[in-house]
């Protein structure tokens, strides 16, 4: 369809500075361009940062640190892996990574959805503030550290100190958990939880029932800390 070709724009990172790429993406988004393909990202940091209008961006290759950070309503697909802090402080919209993510995936993300169709490194969902982070593979140690709100769905295994110093929110793990952090506890899965997982995973081609999901929430034992309860937090990260 000619319309499809006309509304699709291609940006070549090899010819532009990072600032120019972000300025052009912002300009295209505010002009109402629906779809942009970004080629040759070559692991560059800070791509597609703080876009404030709906736009669909497809990165052809792996990206560096902070990809899609602070975005509001953008849809970003990364056809490759990503570096540290993908979707950091995401406000809304969706980021899908067709590969692995390094450390701090979804750090402090307020809203929207981040899907890692691979493994994520340490500290995934650190300080998550309301977004949904889905990892189809495993996550590293100290994931969901100081998580505050939102949902963190891990289909594979979780590393040490999962949910350490968690305030609120829900973590679901389909595989094994190496250890829980301070103030994180297991809670029985409900029919509602399974419904939620099915809803979230189905669009990614994943069957929630194929995993033995466990639910982790905050034990709330550190909400009102007293010095005599030192043992409750002495092993905190």
């Amino acid at each position, binding site marked *: 369809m000619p319309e499809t070709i006309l509304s699709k724009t291609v940006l070549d990172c090899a010819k532009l500075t990072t600032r120019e790429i972000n300025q052009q993406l912002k300009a295209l988004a505010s002009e109402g361009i629906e779809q942009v393909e970004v080629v040759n990202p*070559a*692991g*560059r940091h800070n791509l597609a940062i703080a876009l404030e209008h709906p736009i669909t961006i497809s990165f052809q290759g*792996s990206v*560096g640190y902070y990809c899609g950070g602070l975005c509001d309503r953008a849809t970003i697909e990364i056809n490759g*892996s990503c*570096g*540290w802090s993908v979707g950091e402080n995401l406000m809304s919209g969706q980021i899908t990574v067709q590969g692995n993510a*390094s*450390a701090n995936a979804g750090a402090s993300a307020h809203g929207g959805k981040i899907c890692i169709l691979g493994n994520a*490194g*340490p500290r995934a969902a650190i300080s998550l503030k309301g977004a949904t982070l889905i990892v189809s593979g495993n996550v*590293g*140690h*100290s994931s969901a550290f100081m998580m505050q709100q939102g949902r963190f769905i891990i289909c594979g295994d979780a*590393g040490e100190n999962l949910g350490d110093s968690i305030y609120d929110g829900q973590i679901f793990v389909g595989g094994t958990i190496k250890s829980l952090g301070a103030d994180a506890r297991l809670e029985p899965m409900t029919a509602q939880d399974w419904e939620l997982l099915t809803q979230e995973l189905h669009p990614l081609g994943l069957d929630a029932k194929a995993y033995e999901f466990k639910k982790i929430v905050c034990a709330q034992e550190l909400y009102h800390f007293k010095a005599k309860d030192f043992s409750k937090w002495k092993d905190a990260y």
Partner: protein
Amino acid sequence: MCGIAGIIYHNPASYQNLGRDLLSLIQPLESRGPDSCGVALYSDTDTQEPGIYKEVGAVNNLAKKYGLYDVSGSHGIGHTRMATESVVDTNHCHPFTPGSGLSIVHNGQISNYYKLRFKLEQAGVVFETHNDSEAIAHYIHHQLSLGEPLETALEKLLCDIDGTYTFLVATPNKVALVRDKYAAKPAVVYETAEMVAIASEYRALLTLPHFDPTVPLREPDAGEINIWSTVAVTRELLEARS
């Protein structure tokens, strides 16, 4: 922030590429460490000591000044520095070489540096700079001089050295990559039948000549020690020569 990189060849036919490959790796890492740079290149000759080239300034200047693109060897490590706790001069650049053919490049900060230095000085170690990374070099060298194998020395180091560190240590026949227990500093490993390339960031690997994008990359876990040996390769080379 600093940049570290390393190259180990499995195939002696690639030895001629060492200078070119290692400098390709650290060039893009200049943005992580614009102050100074340095490399330790282990040649395939009988000498045990690596060639150390380091100074304040850009990677390209260092490479051109000493003709490093043409240096051959079995393995090497490199560094780009962003100074955080000591002066910027040639002595404080990486790699650090405490002796016995050992060299290290480090990204991070050692938080128990003064205590560590005091202990090592009590054991007779002489420090030449105020760079905390030098303490890592001396610590490993000291452990080796006590008769510990490199593997044990590095396991002990993970307990004894606090702070954030991802570092590479090279000996005349080994290269090791160590990450602290928080995995606070980055590293990416690219391994093929021909070679191992290690860099702080993925984008540095892309500049490697003959980089194969289909090879899965690996990030070492927190507290993980990786050691690659060049002994098997060297032995094969010696047999081929004799």
